């Protein structure tokens, strides 16, 4: 119920921001649409902590600036590599360990890896990621494990805060095999 309400408020805020017209008819349409979406999601039973990771909380706002800094730095590094005439790339496929315990945490980590140019997640298998790295520097940055630590830090706090049993990494492995 709490989740439904949070989702409704979020959807309504998005509606109001995107529409830009504030008269009774259009706002009524907005309310109807948002109620419809929330009802549909409740009916499909997909309104869980995965659909609405509100429990990540404020730690997310500490992680995002760091991630943006990393993205900018690796953008410059990869741009330099592309513009160097000799093209000094060293493509490798690495298996690295993801120490996050929840699915949301692993998704956040995998997406952060992919968002950073120079590294891209190929697959997730039983708590390990298969990652393609473009240069030696990007591979080293990945192996230093700082991003892993930061995502895990954000998530550990969240799990305590929420107090629910997280999905295990093995569960994620099963899912990826099934898909």
């Amino acid at each position, binding site marked *: 119920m709490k989740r439904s309400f949070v989702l409704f408020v979020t959807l309504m805020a*998005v509606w109001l*921001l*995107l529409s*830009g017209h504030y008269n009774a008819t259009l706002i009524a349409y907005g309310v109807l649409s948002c109620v419809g979406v929330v009802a549909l999601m409740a009916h499909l039973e997909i309104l869980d902590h995965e659909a609405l990771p509100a429990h990540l909380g404020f730690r997310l706002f500490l992680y995002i600036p760091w991630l943006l800094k990393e*993205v*900018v730095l690796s*953008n410059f590094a*990869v*741009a330099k590599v*592309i*513009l160097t005439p000799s*093209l000094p*790339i060293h*493509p*490798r*496929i*690495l*298996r*690295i360990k993801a120490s996050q315990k929840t699915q949301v945490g692993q998704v956040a980590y*995998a*997406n*952060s890896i*992919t*968002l*950073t*140019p*120079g*590294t*891209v*997640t*190929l*697959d997730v298998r039983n708590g390990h990621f*298969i990652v*393609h790295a*473009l240069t030696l520097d990007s*591979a*080293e940055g990945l*192996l*230093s494990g700082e991003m892993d630590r930061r995502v895990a830090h954000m998530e550990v706090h969240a799990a305590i805060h929420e107090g629910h049993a997280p999905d295990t990494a093995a569960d994620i492995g099963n899912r990826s095999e099934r898909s």
Partner: protein
Amino acid sequence: MMEVGREIGVWILLVAGSVFCVIGGIGMIRLPDFYTRSHAASITDTLGATLILLGLALYSGFNLITVKLFFVLFLLYITSPTAAHALVKAAYSKGLDAPDLEDVTEIGGATSSSADSATLRPDAKGVN
């Protein structure tokens, strides 16, 4: 004075954004295989798009347009890694030519396990 500063800021952001986009495009042509090219695409999707949209946001000042610009940016940041991952995962699981899988525990200590990669990718090669 304020206006001139803003004008210069818009110029710098938009030109830098276009430069990064073009660099990504050049990488798309220059890099040798599919997996490396996906990194070039991620340059244009992250910094190129961010700088251009930030430039537009600075130009428009703070109003509903800015909110929409940040919405586009947020959407790009969510969808672009998802799309990139879906694509490379499809390519990898179909066995598109790739470097061997390495099990690395620390920097420099690379131990390539060829047996493992053979079992993980039974149908390597032969995809067009």
